[in-house]
């Protein structure tokens, strides 16, 4: 398995180079001028704009700009924004916020989603099952920003249980509401996923055998049935961890959190190529690692799966 992990990690390098180049091209192709963007609605002074353009190599062709960027990255320099801040500083400032938000959301959706799915599968057709089905349907169909605003109004403004926005109160108070909003849709999907694959497992031969052997119910459900039902769920969770990090754009905006999502949106708007590339690369890395962990977990869940 060690060789498998090393091979997978080595694959990351070409993926990263490819991804950074593609993103760089995409941002390059967007219309709009980053130096004019610095001046907002007023016209940038032509002389100053020209000096800034030369300083940031903006007059050079795409491949040269990419070369400036990527050679910087290999010497450990992520470059600077067009208003002179180090990108590494921005990332280290903002990544923790998104990481905390994403992992909180991840924990919420994994725990609540799986538990709701199991309960619903065990009580199939009963009242509880219907509650879960309706609730998940509602969560899937409400747009994120609507859900976020409703929670803000209810818990932040009316009941004053949590802050309305910002991260001043730190974890968990400031993070709990946005994390729930961020987790909501995936949580509903997971509950449904667990429900259907559990339903299948419960009826399987090996579960009947386990029950016939006289094993306690908790062990039959928790180990025999659940473990086999987890493969699709783990696959989904793995992909979702990456998606949570990137998908925080709307949530972070609604709750005014200074995370990567907001920075990514802002940098895209300002045409800050190096920042966009840096942040997306980071997200891709998280995605790749999450997927590697998922693949390794398959072997844990199903002993028949082995890696060479």
């Amino acid at each position: 398995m060690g060789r498998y992990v090393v091979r997978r990690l080595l694959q990351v390098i070409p993926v990263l180079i490819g991804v950074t180049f593609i993103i760089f091209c995409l941002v390059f192709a967007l219309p709009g001028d980053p130096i004019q963007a610095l001046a907002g609605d007023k016209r940038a002074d032509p002389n100053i704009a020209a000096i800034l353009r030369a300083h940031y190599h903006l007059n050079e062709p795409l491949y040269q700009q990419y070369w400036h960027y990527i050679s910087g990255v290999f010497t450990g320099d992520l470059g600077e924004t067009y208003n002179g801040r180090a990108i590494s500083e921005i990332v280290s400032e903002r990544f923790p916020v998104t990481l905390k938000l994403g992992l909180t959301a991840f924990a919420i959706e994994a725990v609540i989603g799986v538990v709701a799915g199991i309960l619903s599968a065990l009580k199939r057709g009963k009242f509880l099952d219907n509650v879960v089905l309706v609730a998940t349907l509602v969560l899937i169909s409400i747009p994120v920003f609507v859900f976020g605003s409703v929670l803000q109004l209810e818990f932040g403004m009316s009941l004053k249980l949590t802050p309305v926005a910002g991260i001043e109160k730190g974890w968990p108070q400031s993070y709990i509401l946005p994390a729930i909003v961020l987790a909501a849709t995936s949580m509903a999907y997971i509950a449904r996923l667990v429900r259907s694959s559990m339903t299948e497992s419960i009826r399987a031969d090996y579960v009947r055998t386990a029950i016939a052997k006289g094993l306690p119910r908790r062990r039959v459900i928790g180990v025999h049935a659940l473990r086999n039902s987890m493969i699709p769920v783990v696959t989904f969770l793995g992909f979702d961890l990456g998606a949570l990090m990137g998908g925080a754009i709307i949530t972070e905006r609604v709750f005014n959190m200074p995370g990567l999502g907001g920075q990514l949106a802002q940098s895209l708007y300002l045409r800050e190529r190096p920042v966009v590339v840096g942040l997306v690369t980071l997200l891709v890395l998280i995605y790749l690692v999450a997927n590697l962990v998922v693949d390794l977990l398959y072997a844990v869940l199903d002993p028949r799966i082995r890696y060479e």
Partner: protein
Amino acid sequence: MRGAKSAKWVAIAAVVALGATACGGGGGDSSSGAGKGNGVVSVEIGEPQNSLVPSNTYETEGGQVINALFTGLTKLDASNKVVNAMAESIETKDNKVWTIKLKSGYTFHNGEKVTAQSFVDAWNYGANQTNAQQTNPLFSHIQGYSDLNPGEGKKPSTDQMSGLKAVDDSTLQVTLSGAFSAFPSQLSFTAFVPLPKAFFKDPKGFGEAPIGNGPFKMKGKFKHNEQIDTTKYDKYPDASKIEVKGVNFKIYSNPDTAYKDLVAGNLDSLLTIPTSGLPTYKKDLPNRTIDEADSAVGYIGFPIKYNKAFQNADLRKAISMAIDRQTIADKVFLGARTPADDYISPIIDGYRKGACGDGCTLNVAKAKELYKKSGGLPGNKLELGYNADGGHKEWIEAVANQLQQNLGLKVTAKPFEQFQTILNDLDAKKYQGAFRMAWSMDYPDAEDYLRPVFSKDAIANGSNYSGYVNEDFEKLLVKGDQAPTHEDAVKFYQQADDVLLKDMPYIPVYFYTLNAGFSDKIKSMKVAGHQILWDTVKLS
């Protein structure tokens, strides 16, 4: 065996996940929840575009912070008049050589005395192209500016403008390259504040924790996208007039969220109520709102310089007369705008109510007549460009509908992704249609509504995107610059304004209004030039 091993795996994964989420648990900031009694006021701003260097701050978000941290030579009072701040007196005989005496007692927050040299150094830095400061062109009136701006690829031969001279510690002599009567007014802009010696040693570090000479000093560093915390500077000469003990600039990316925070009592001041809050803000914030004219003007512009169809003034006037400004102000903007009737904002000395007259009043019959007389547009088609990122869709579409109905034109509203993409297309002479435009003042003077938007010079480095040129207009501006008194200057600027009203290079459509709100922690406050006047803030 296998089971035990895999259980361990899952357990490790779970621990990692939990550990990572818990790691920031202690990060709670105790400075929040300001409480009613401690005199600290929180204010909404957006993330400043650049770090907090005065000469590199050309927008209102950072401008608000600079205004609290620094005091310049002149400032605005509650009625938008320019009054002396750090200047004891400003004197001139010919509007060209200005002698400015400084008040004593001002120190920077690190204890350094503010002298005439502090201004000279700061302005020389701001005007030098090597430093690529956003407000660089504002210094262009000062003699010697061109030496510091030889152009791209060339190095300035000196780093000092010949027009700046610190006669002694408290006397500053400024020579301009030509007469400019609005100079004291221009000095109220935040780019003209003094800088301490510490700045020049480390401009980058300074931008994260500026040392000013104003009523408030930084408390810690600029926390990007979160907040800028300041506390009152006790050695400020007018400190006794300021009730507020500190200002906490809270940074929001979304005005809707800021509004919710204001209503919930987590924020004390919001200068721009978002559209979502406009229908209810007077009820949400009883007796805690401010509604007054703001400094900005919204226009519809035409690419006169390369689209022949728009070169006829009657055509532009016909379009102007077919627009129902009142409906747009009331229905589309819910009262957050007022119909424009001049090129100069109502808060500025020189504004004349109804100056635009018939030209800005809905008159369908006359509009039709003028349109016919002008020869009309090719194919009776008009395109209206706007940037889709700034909430302009609704009013542009309303104008499109009105023109369609009133003039029988085929009007299409054309969204551009960003304002810059319109500007790029205009510069490249690619875009043939009309476009939305706006101007907000840098300093409260009629001149600032004319020269930077409509003069010949403004084609290259201002907001004259239509390429309008009128020599009479240029001459009247110069006359205004040379006028011996402020009143005379205003008269000439008004005459220049009349030329514009006749030619209508841009159609003035609406004036912005300031719709602000504050929390119950504040009893009253005044705003001028989109900045809170800190000595007028009274706490309850």
